[in-house]
């Protein structure tokens, strides 16, 4: 068992002071759905847990003309119940809704999903196609980084000692834009992505794609942005040929592993299919807004 020192600071500044001044390993506690399980494996270790959930700004989400300011610790259950957010970022909400069970969603957060830095994190591709930004606060002040640059490897990210993710900022999508996220799991419910894909698409009044973002998860050490898969959509009506090109580009960009849940060959194929289907859904959502 691990020896825990628990602190629940009331402000981000206090949290940074605790994290940067810690003499033992210090970890931020958000929903705990990854962390508490990881700690069960530790023996004769001391941990400082800094619970951020008593800081009001970490638990709130504001949607305004700027976009969404998402408190990183808000539970997925609370986020997915927000119809205002769902109407603007349906793909992000469907990703949050896919994480674990009802019970897990009651605790798990988008910020925790990001900071755990698994390549299979469901919300990360959806954040990336929406150009989301991480606001990071640390002992030397505040900095911002795009979500696609946050994770640096499996379970690794760019947070330095004393730093924490204080806000996720998602710009308001351009007019006639929508998104979608799909993942594949071997079961119907409650599993971790074998492959995942998010797509954001903008169509003009003639149904021609003028902007797109494609991001794929669980098929490389970090979630990837596939610029080539977005490029092949530009200037098309998101027709069958364009979708096939998206699938090929996504498959080609992936570098998956083989494990008991799927071979690399299988994952490479499936991620293309998911990217193609997510693009079709995002385009259909835009047509729904336009009609």
């Amino acid at each position, binding site marked *: 068992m691990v*020896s*825990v020192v628990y602190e629940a600071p009331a402000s981000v500044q206090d949290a940074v002071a605790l994290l940067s001044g810690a003499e033992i390993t210090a970890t931020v506690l958000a929903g705990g759905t990854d962390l508490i399980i990881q700690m069960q494996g530790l023996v004769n270790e001391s941990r400082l847990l800094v619970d951020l959930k008593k800081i009001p700004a970490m638990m709130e989400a504001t949607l305004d003309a700027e976009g969404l300011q998402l408190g990183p610790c808000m539970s997925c259950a609370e986020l997915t119940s927000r119809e205002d957010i769902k109407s603007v970022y349906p793909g992000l909400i469907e990703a949050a809704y896919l994480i674990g069970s009802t*019970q897990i969603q009651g605790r798990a957060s988008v910020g925790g999903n990001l900071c755990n830095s698994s390549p299979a994190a469901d919300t990360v591709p959806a954040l990336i196609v929406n150009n989301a930004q991480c606001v990071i606060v640390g002992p030397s002040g505040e900095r911002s980084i795009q979500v696609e640059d946050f994770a640096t490897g499996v379970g690794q990210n760019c947070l330095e000692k004393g730093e924490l993710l204080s806000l996720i900022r998602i710009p308001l999508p351009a007019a006639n834009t929508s998104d979608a996220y799909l993942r594949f799991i071997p079961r119907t419910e409650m599993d971790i992505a074998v492959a995942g894909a998010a797509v954001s698409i903008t169509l003009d009044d003639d149904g021609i794609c003028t902007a797109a973002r494609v991001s794929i998860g669980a098929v490389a050490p970090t979630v990837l942005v596939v610029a080539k898969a977005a490029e092949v959509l530009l200037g098309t009506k998101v027709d069958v040929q364009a979708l096939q090109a998206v699938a090929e580009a996504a498959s080609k960009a992936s570098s998956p592993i083989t494990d008991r849940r799927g071979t690399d060959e299988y994952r490479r194929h499936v991620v293309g299919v998911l990217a193609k289907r997510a693009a079709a859904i995002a385009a259909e959502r835009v047509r729904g807004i336009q009609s």
Partner: protein
Amino acid sequence: MTKTHVTTTINGEVTEFLCEPGATLLAVLRNELQLTGTKEGCGTGDCGACSVTLNGRLVCSCLVLGVEAEGAEIGTVEGIGGIDKLHIIQEKFLEHAALQCGICTPGLIVSTKALLAENPEPTEKEARYYLAGNLCRCTGYDKIIRAVMDSAEAMRGDA
């Protein structure tokens, strides 16, 4: 190790306890407070046997620290019906024989109550998805779902 003093509300009653900061809420409920209705299955958030509500949200108590209960409202199966008067959901689980060994039952009762509070008229598909985090290795779920759907109807009739 120094224990932490926690003041919380469990099933509507203000409750105080001492716990080690690394102890789970599940361990506190069962070992400190003798609220043994909440069961430990997997201990890793997969099975739902330890389901409780935390400030109205359904959670696995094995993935919550006892110290996080400070100032919170906890709901356990002990707060749902009693030996003298069972809750409709408990009656329906008995009526439909929706249990065999019973280990998953408290978690399912807590989850069903949370489901029906959020969605009083779920479709069978919605109920099955909502309860996907409550594993039962005996019944095959069919009787559980019948009990849940019947509970929903009976509770709407009551209102």
